[in-house]
């Protein structure tokens, strides 16, 4: 039962992360390949504030989201003028750069080898309480995205993705929307990171590698681009599947490779046969 709650928490983390990535990749069409960096920033900020400065966990999580958004914008601004591959490549490079930052700051920092003493408010210190809180945060994020999808802002994002130069000719600066949505995506990733830290009770640089960035690409790729149901469906189906692998008696040595191979296969098949995903509204941009 507790394990199911844990898996539920994980799914929620990936849903929030996927929503953020889908805003950037699906709605706005920017090929972000390094979203895990912001996940890490959020996780480290929240955990660090909580452990070293005694900030309460809710505030620390919010701070994680805000700091991730700020870092996201700061790292995004120089990349604004890039397009296509070079943008994808630069964001992918950012992921490696951040990984090394986390990794090298970790060994000598007290508490880096596990989040000792993450102080949780009493209400979420029990597994059920934690799950309800995380579920609540997830529902809030879904609601925000749902409002966004239907708002003029969401429309402007899709217009930016479709034809940025046409939007420009209508007197609206696509870069403004790109920066905004990048900040929003960063905030979602940061929040997901903070919740991830709370779920696992520890953080470690290996959680924020390129593989995590690729995983979110698979989540939204399978679920569906530019689609909220897609952002939920992807993590639910894939996490349930890979966690389910543990229960069918597969040796645990095989679960990681099978997950990786499955993600790889899904990417290939999706690109071949269904580029918009299960319930997506949009193709991978050319």
């Amino acid at each position, binding site marked *: *039962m*507790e*394990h*199911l709650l*844990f898996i539920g928490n994980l799914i929620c983390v990936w849903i929030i992360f996927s929503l953020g990535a889908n805003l950037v990749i699906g709605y706005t069409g920017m090929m972000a390949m390094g979203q895990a960096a912001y996940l890490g920033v959020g996780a480290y900020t929240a955990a660090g504030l909580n452990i070293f400065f005694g900030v309460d966990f809710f505030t620390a999580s919010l701070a994680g989201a805000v700091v991730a958004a700020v870092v996201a914008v700061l790292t995004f601004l120089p990349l604004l003028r890039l397009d296509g591959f070079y943008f994808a490549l630069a964001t992918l490079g950012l992921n490696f750069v951040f990984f090394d930052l986390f*990794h*090298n700051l*970790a*060994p*000598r920092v007290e508490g*880096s*080898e*596990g*989040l*000792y*003493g*993450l102080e949780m408010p009493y209400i979420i210190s029990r597994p059920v309480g934690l799950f309800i809180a995380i579920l609540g945060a997830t529902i809030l994020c879904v609601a925000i995205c749902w409002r966004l999808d239907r708002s003029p802002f969401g429309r402007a994002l899709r217009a930016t993705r479709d034809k940025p130069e046409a939007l420009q000719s209508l007197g609206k600066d696509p870069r403004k929307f790109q920066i905004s949505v990048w900040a929003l995506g960063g905030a979602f990733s940061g929040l997901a990171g903070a919740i991830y830290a709370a779920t*696992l*009770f*520890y953080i*470690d640089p*290996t*959680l924020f590698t390129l593989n995590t960035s690729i995983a979110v690409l698979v989540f939204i790729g399978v679920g569906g681009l530019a689609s909220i149901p897609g952002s939920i469906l992807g993590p639910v189906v894939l996490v349930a599947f890979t966690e389910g692998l*543990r*229960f*069918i*008696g597969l*040796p*645990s*040595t095989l*679960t*990681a*490779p099978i997950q990786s191979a499955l993600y790889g296969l899904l990417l290939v098949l999706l690109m071949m046969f269904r580029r918009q995903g299960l319930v997506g509204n949009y193709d991978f941009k050319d």
Partner: protein
Amino acid sequence: MSRLAGIRAHASARISLFASLAMLGLAASATTALAQAAKGEPVKIGVTYPLSGPQGAWGQLLLPAIEISVAQRNEAGGINGRPIQIVVEDTKGTPDGGVSSMRKLVQVDGVPAILTIFTNVVSAQIPLARQFQVPIISPVEAPGLVTNTQYAFAHSPLPSRTVPIVGEVWKKQNVKRIFAFYPNTPIVKFLSPIVKGEAEKLGATYDEALFKLGDSDFRGLITRAKDFGPDAIFIMGHGTPDEGAIMKQIRELGIQTPLYGGCACITVKSYREAAGKAADGLIYGGFKYDRAAAAKLIDAYRARMGFDPDYASLEAYDMINMIADSAAKNGVSGSAIREGLANLKGFKSIGGGLVDMNDNQTVISVGLYKVIDAGKPEFQEITP
């Protein structure tokens, strides 16, 4: 060979997985405790070892020793007549893998105690052990890591004991420049001050370099050592083949400086193979055990694998019996086993001699060794 062993372990794990899956469907994890109360029902012990990744080779060499230990214990009556059954999960040697496999073992399989390994994994598992009230026991060699918590135990020679005897060699040979290699993981936090302190005692100059686990070309890093011009090079980490590879590459950069280590990792086959001839002459302080006393493990292991077990296999053998003894005395719940481990006195180690649990950490005898021929392999106990 080792893969076969792994599969065998999983075959038994599989049956229990099906059972627990069914239970999971019904309700709560508490049912596992009820199921175990039945007579003859096996007592499950969790094993979170790396079976893949940089440390995977070692993890796979350790599993057979655990299985031999379990088999011999079960023949001798198990835990008050109940057999021991191990459930193995792969941690990949990462904290991430350590935590998720521990969660699965406790929450799905309901194991009351866990055998684990490697500082970075253990560090991540400690808070979880406290939360679940499931004791973890490991051969971590990080001083102070387990002493500040109730639910973590260690059974190993500490570098705070092995490094000083290496230091005596340095003193005798009048070593003035020491260079050390550690992996870029939290283990540096424990190791670096010890070696540095030893160097300070001798009035020697000290420098260090951190290598990245999973890299393969360390020559740039080694050039640092070459530039430093050391008369002693110290290498210690998680016992991964990386350390062996560094030894080899040190020699291939024309550095003939003597090599030193703070653990008996060279007894591990994968480590030894990565080092090759470069490890000849290596001097290390490590677990000192009596081969005759350990014969029942060494012979069984040799028969199965074709070569001798390494020092950590002996420690793992002990740890199974420590858990079994504690469970036999206090009961099979997590807190009962913890109680037993914390008050362990006069435990008869496979390496010979009696050990006590002191502050969650056993004190086992250490000795100084020199590698005569890493290929054979041949080690010789020496005195500084």
